[in-house]
């Protein structure tokens, strides 16, 4: 068990190192950041001075090792555009993305799982067929287009909800959160709904497939024979049995939703890290791009690592086999 964990930690570290090199070289291979930093009409002295100040005159490998050394001390450099430390910048934008993602994934689970269970419980009813048809639509329709339609319907035509921005925030544990104010919630609703759409289809399909399988097992047969009501069977047995794969997917999807937030945040001008990365790609703000990619890679590796450990804890065969 312990050797397995150590092995995985080392693997994760190696992957992070490779990722950092790839990201660094990739990001620094494009464009000339000096053109972003200073106008074309400044004197040659200032130009050279700026290049030296950001260390852009050194060879690439030297820049990489300087970068790596700083990163190990939690220093990702300063943003070219915002002029503040990148880590601070990303951390200041992170809560907005986190609450958006969490709202979306929770919403998808709260609607998708009951809908999926129903569709699996009564696979032939018209409502189930409608649910499945909608889920195909949810898979097929690109997120950004749904966002446009939501804005057009609820913000432009009906004028019920705002079209973008984060609205008022309130402070909790020293961090500003949107969901604590009514105005903020009204801003959160549309983007969260938009981001939830794809996940909703996924959750529905998974819950349906699981329910259909579980309904055919002896557990359900015996429960029925014992005279337990259908509602109790669904809640106590079916939901419990299908929850294991759903929890795994929930974890993995949380990470991919974090990435998908890029699209939603752009459409709804939501000031999270997704909007930040798009803006920094457009303005060639390299330190921000590098730090964002490293952060996302880190989150992904961590989540995969945790899921791996969960399997390890759940499946006794793995424990005996290789440790």
């Amino acid at each position: 068990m312990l050797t397995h964990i150590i092995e995985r930690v080392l693997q994760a570290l190696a992957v992070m190192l490779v990722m950092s090199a790839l990201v660094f070289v990739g990001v620094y291979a494009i464009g000339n950041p000096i053109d972003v930093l200073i106008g074309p009409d400044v004197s040659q002295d200032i130009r050279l001075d700026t290049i030296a100040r950001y260390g852009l005159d050194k060879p690439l490998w030297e820049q990489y090792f300087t970068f790596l050394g700083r990163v190990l001390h939690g220093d990702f450099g300063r943003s070219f555009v915002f002029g503040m430390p990148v880590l601070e910048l990303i951390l200041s934008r992170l809560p907005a993305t986190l609450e958006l993602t969490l709202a979306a994934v929770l919403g998808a689970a709260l609607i998708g799982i009951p809908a999926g269970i129903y569709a699996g419980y009564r696979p032939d009813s018209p409502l189930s067929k409608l649910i499945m048809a909608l889920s195909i639509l949810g898979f097929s329709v690109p997120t950004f287009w749904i966002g446009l339609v939501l804005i057009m319907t609820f913000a432009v035509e009906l004028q019920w909800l705002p079209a973008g921005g984060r609205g008022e925030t309130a402070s909790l544990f020293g961090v500003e959160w949107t969901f604590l104010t009514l105005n903020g919630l009204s801003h959160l609703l549309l983007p969260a709904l938009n981001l939830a759409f794809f996940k909703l289809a996924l959750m529905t399909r998974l819950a349906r497939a699981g329910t259909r399988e579980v309904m055919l097992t002896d557990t359900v047969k015996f429960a029925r024979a014992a005279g337990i009501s259908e509602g109790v069977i669904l809640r106590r047995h079916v939901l419990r049995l299908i929850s294991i794969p759903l929890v795994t997917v929930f974890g993995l999807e949380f990470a991919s939703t974090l990435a998908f937030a890029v699209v939603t945040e752009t459409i709804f001008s939501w000031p999270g890290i997704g909007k930040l990365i798009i803006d920094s790609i457009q303005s060639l703000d390299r330190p921000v791009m590098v730090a964002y990619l490293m952060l996302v890679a880190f989150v992904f590796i961590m989540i995969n690592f945790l899921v791996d450990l969960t399997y390890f804890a759940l499946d006794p065969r793995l424990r005996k086999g290789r440790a």
Partner: protein
Amino acid sequence: MMRKEAPIARFWDEFRESRIAVAALVVVALMIGVALLAPLIAPQNPYDLANLVLSDARRPPGYVGSGGYTHWLGTDAQGRDLLSAILYGLRISLQMGLVAGAFAFAIGVTLGIAAAYLGGRREAFIMRVIDLQLAFPAILLALVISALLGQGKAQLVTALVAAQYAYFARTAHGAASAERGKDYVEAALSTPLPARQVIWRHILPNCLPPLIVVATVQVANAIALEATLSFLGVGLPVTEPSLGSLIANGFQYMLSGRYWISIYPGLALILLIVAINLVGDQIRDQVNPRLKR
């Protein structure tokens, strides 16, 4: 007694039983048809600037423009006929999806089958890299690569292929490992036939059914991904607008109620993706051995 039929004919007979799938297939064929014929059937060439009249800009659907014909879907900010722009956009979107899909198929399947055939540490290494990549969301990978490479068709295809080949590799590896252990492959390998031929003639054809399913879904995904990238401004340049770029162009006018510039290209995009996915769904059901009647 079973009738003797060509596998393709049997497949088609089964496919025909689903009316939805047939309808979807017709839609896909029609859309490919109009995309191919776009220069012939579009009311105007939307990329010839000489054709564009600014006083025709942002007109609602049904407006009769200075060209003397009706803009059934309205016009965009440059006075471009939207129907024509959609037909040309469809062409580019389909082209990107199919080219990216074909490259991803070739690279992914080669890697997957090679890994299954080689076995041992080389297999473990290849699959480890691919698994790692699959853990990363395709959208992010494509976004970063196209941001790094800049705008353009070749760059975009590279980004799409990089984001998608792993799905083919995974599927091909799974199918090929199962075939690799079977007696007929062992038998073929023990003959003096070169390994290349055993892979090509025996292993690959038997891996095709699941790969075809993945290919359909991935072409739809590539089209959606391309649209998303173009919408975010890192896909194709404005001179070659796909459906995604058309939607992006219309976005700013949406808030003032000029919905048609974004909505109609979007509907065309969705119709295409849904239709491809429905066809893919049916093929999946047909090749799934667990659902065999």
